[in-house]
């Protein structure tokens, strides 16, 4: 008797940024993407407030999840380092 198919609980997304190495992060489907941002910034030693994340041309909100954005394995999240000053 075939085993029941396991429900997918995580996806692996690629975070890419200008002049930086690509980082692959495995994320739980229902985890707020704020955690993904923190994980990426901690890994690369960046100030989280200075990095913006976009997916498919839209900014990712902290509370949104992988399920909300219908992300799939291998999808690319763009990270943008920004500097704001007068």
């Amino acid at each position, binding site marked *: 008797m075939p085993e029941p198919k396991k429900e997918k609980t995580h996806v692996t997304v690629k975070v890419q940024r200008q002049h930086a190495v690509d980082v692959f992060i495995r994320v739980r489907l229902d985890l707020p993407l704020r955690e993904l941002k923190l994980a990426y910034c901690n890994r690369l030693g960046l100030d989280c407030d200075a990095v913006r994340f976009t997916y498919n041309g839209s*900014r990712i909100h902290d509370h949104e999840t992988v399920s909300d954005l219908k992300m799939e394995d291998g999808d690319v999240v763009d990270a943008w380092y920004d*500097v704001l000053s*007068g």
Partner: protein
Amino acid sequence: MGSPQLRLSPVVNNVVVASKPREVVGDEVTSKNVEWEKNLQSIRSFAFLIENIRYEKAIKIAYEKELFGEEVDFHLQKVDMGYICELEKVSLTCIVVYMSYLYDVMKVPNKHGSILFVNPYIISAKNKPGDNANATLLARRLEDAKPGELVVAPCNVGFHWSLLVIDVSSSTVYYLDSLVDEVPMDVKILIRWRQGKQDEKSSLASSSGTDGSLSTLECW
């Protein structure tokens, strides 16, 4: 520097600091802006555009190799344009968009050959301590400079935008800052270059440049 409005302070360690004079020049106060109606309309159109963009919408702008020596993408967001309207802050993306505009304007009279733009991200992005990626990228861009060309690099050392203009052929760095007369330590560290047989000390101490071009250029 070509601009007569800039006053250059004495050269310190091969870095020249320029500060903006405070006095008003000529009949600047009484001059009338004949284009004001057109400009006002343009500003209103811009504000209308921003009001109608979704907050999370990011406008992707791809720049070709000729601007920064490499193909790069930037995302312009509503918040960036909002800051401009409110005269609050200037984001790195807005600086890049303006540089692109300048490049296009200068291309018409064919002047762009004398200026080389550096991606402001290279100097302004912060890396881990000990990571010299920024200096390496700047050095790579400086290698593209032809004799007589000025390298223009907007930089941000944490709280304020300033401009580095590098004359590679005379090994001189002009630091243009509208707020302070001192060169920040970050910039001093970034712009330390070595030349062939000259040792580091003599290279930094020379104020008027050197005779030859920089055959081996290295940034730290």
